[in-house]
């Protein structure tokens, strides 16, 4: 014990960073396992490589900087986990490895390590990969469950991930958002383009093409509710993200159903649920106050809808998150809680007025 007398409080509630990270990982587990099952062994290999790359990069960075290793808090594992879930499930190994390196080295350690980064590391890596390797990053495979006939086994999966042969045409597919965008550009309206793909049951259970961990909306939602129930996250950001996405989508679809996807399709496809509950809610890169979090979340939802509807990419969640991350310091500056006994402007409140109304 130090020689200086420690100041109060002399008690602690027992919360810890490691515990928080464990809760988030537990919440991600169902959707991840579902992704493994849906996309088979290549997805498992990609996941392991991405997480491994993050852990290794963190280890090397901290060794080089001669600081104590913080692997025990589980944050590097979580970053790799989230990144892996946002990658095409049959992406080659080098995508995962490079992504893990970018996320930890550039997205996190360059800023000064845990708590210092301005941008969500997993999204930094995803966006860097997406703009650098657009073809590889948008090559989706149709679901081929692990248990189905013709699904690659462990060894075959390893070959797909490591040697990255072009995916057989038979299983190449497009995500719902990508498909709608392509068809729209060919002059086919979305109503005909997506057809049966918007069947709610189909979207909820998520047996469709997409990133490794974003398809199983119901599993992600369950995980999100678990985080809410355990108090790891609060409702403000997820609800605001979903509202920011659904409200303009509903208005757009009502005005021009041939051009704008319905709100349900927006909510249940792409990274909407994953982004709302697991990515936007990253502590480090989101605002501190309840009101600021509502602004932040709504901004992400709205921007995602704008990019999806009018932007060059079919999916915009990652871009929207990064843009709002950049705005977080501004939001924090203008959305401050009111101090007890003071007005929002900081002046002491008027005691006489209160006595009057009593």
């Amino acid at each position: 014990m130090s020689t200086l007398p420690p100041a109060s409080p002399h008690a602690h509630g027992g919360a810890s960073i490691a515990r928080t990270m464990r809760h988030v990982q537990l919440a991600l587990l169902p959707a991840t396992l579902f992704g493994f099952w849906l996309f088979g062994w290549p997805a498992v290999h990609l996941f392991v490589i991405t997480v491994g790359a993050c852990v290794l990069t963190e280890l090397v960075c901290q060794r080089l900087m001669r600081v104590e290793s913080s692997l025990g808090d589980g944050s590097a594992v979580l970053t790799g986990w989230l990144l892996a879930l946002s990658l095409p499930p049959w992406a080659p190994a080098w995508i995962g490895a490079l992504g893990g390196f970018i996320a930890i080295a550039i997205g996190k350690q360059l800023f000064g390590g845990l708590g210092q980064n301005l941008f969500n590391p997993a999204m930094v890596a995803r966006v860097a990969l997406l703009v650098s390797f657009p073809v590889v990053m948008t090559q989706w495979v149709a679901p081929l469950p692990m248990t189905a006939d013709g699904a690659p086994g462990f060894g075959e999966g390893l070959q797909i991930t490591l040697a990255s042969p072009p995916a057989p045409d038979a299983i190449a597919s497009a995500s719902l958002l990508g498909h709608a965008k392509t068809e729209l550009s060919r002059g086919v309206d979305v109503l005909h383009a997506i057809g049966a793909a918007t069947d709610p049951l189909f979207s909820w259970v998520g047996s469709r093409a997409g990133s490794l961990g974003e398809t199983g909306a119901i599993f992600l939602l369950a995980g999100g509710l678990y985080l809410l129930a355990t108090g790891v996250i609060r409702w403000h950001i997820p609800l605001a993200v979903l509202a920011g996405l659904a409200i303009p989508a509903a208005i757009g679809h009502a005005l021009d159903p041939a051009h704008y996807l319905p709100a349900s399709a927006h909510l249940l496809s792409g990274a909407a649920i994953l982004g709302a509950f697991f990515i936007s809610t990253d502590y480090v890169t989101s605002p501190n106050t309840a009101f600021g979090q509502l602004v932040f979340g709504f901004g992400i939802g709205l921007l995602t809808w704008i990019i999806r509807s009018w932007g060059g990419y079919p999916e915009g969640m990652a871009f929207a998150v990064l843009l709002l991350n950049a705005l977080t310091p501004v939001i924090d500056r203008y959305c401050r809680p009111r101090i007890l006994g003071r007005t929002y402007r900081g002046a002491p409140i008027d005691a006489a007025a209160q006595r009057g109304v009593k």
Partner: protein
Amino acid sequence: MGFIDRFLRTRKFSRGIHPEDHKRPAADALVRKMPLPERLYVPLLQHVGAPAHAAVAVGDTVQKGQRIAAPQGAISAAIHAPTSGRIVAIGDIVAPHPSGLPVAAITIDSDGRDEWTTLTACADPFALEPAEIGRRVSAAGVVGLGGAAFPSAVKLSGGRDANVDLLIINGGECEPFLSCDDRLMRDRAEEAVDGIAIMLHAAGAREARIGIEDNKPEAIAAMRAAAAGHPKIRVEPVPTRYPMGSEKHLVLALTGLEVPAQGRPADVGVVVHNVATAVAVRDAVRFGRPLVSRLVTVNGACVREPGNVEVLIGTLADEVLEFCGGLRADRGAPARLLMGGPMTGMQVPSLRVPVIKGTGGILVLDADEVGLRTPGPCIRCSTCVRACPVGLLPLEIARRIRAGDLDAAVKFGLKDCIACGCCAYDCPSHIPLVQYFHHAKGELAARDRNKLRNEATKTLAQARAERLERETREKAETAARRKAGPDPQPAPAPRPAGAAAPPAGESA
């Protein structure tokens, strides 16, 4: 932005934390009375304000309740002999404070008889003038027993001047581990209510509300029964939420009124007294009995027989602990020795320090209870923002303090911090936030003192420059007059001081 307030419910006391309370079984054990110690150490400063001035000499014999030190200045409190005996020393002892610095105290050797001095009782306190009640409370050396130890008479008589119409009695006792107020309300409810009635009369308030956290159902029932015959006194259970016992938060919870920043509850027509203070006021006014003892909670995993003990002021904490069976052998070395509760109490270097009027607890905590761990980096999770009952951004303030930018920390509300400890208690990274705030407040105080000193120097230098200039001018004028011979015109009046003073900034 009132609509946001309503939406996010910031107008109510909705923040704060729910610490594990550790109050039972100590709270359920009957109060024990300590046997008379052989020697008592009574510090001269046990209250907020100026230290009392010793009114006895070494070798004097004193009776129990005899005044041994007189108040000095407007905010101070008298001190009385806790038992009968002989004064053996007046001088420094180790302070009941983390610094362990010396503090002036009167040491009394007990004669074992514990004989009271002659006391002036009063059959009907309600016939007394309110000002007279204030005088009697002051003479009895009563201070706030909730921990702050502010002289009660000052607050009581100040109530009339400030037009206070509501008396709030603080039975919140939100600090974990402590149960002395709980025990007092269960055992001496009638006396407490009688004291509250006397205080109502003295403060000139319309009604009294007793706020008790709802984790003390026995106390609520006892106080309700005692207050049944008093239409002006009401018991109001409040939610169990730390820091409910903070004056401003109890006022907010009971009335919805917000005490202005830098203000006092009197600004919104409220005065707050602790429930134990009410009993002390009753003893002082009805029986003329000064404050010489109090209830102290002895608790913590390391204590063999935790409970509440009636202790004479000046008893060494060590002896109180010994009376409670001493330390448990199976718990290893204690992690913390505390005076007061774990959230705001003080770590003391050893327990060879006396119990004073504001001591509510003697705690010996083990490592599990303290939950000490190495601090990690801030992950901006904003747990502290949600915990802060004042509405501050503890993470932002701490960041400014780490960077040495105290002015920015003040802009973020450092001076509004009540050091309740909620932020640090909930911080998942175990960052000692309150320690940062204490440090910064100390730096600020030192800086303010320096500024005052510099200003004083500046004023002196300026005055000197003005004087020199005036003297030179006067000399020149006299010389000029002498040269010109007798002048029919009167000399021009000297210029007002300061108007032509040279800037004297840098030299100071």
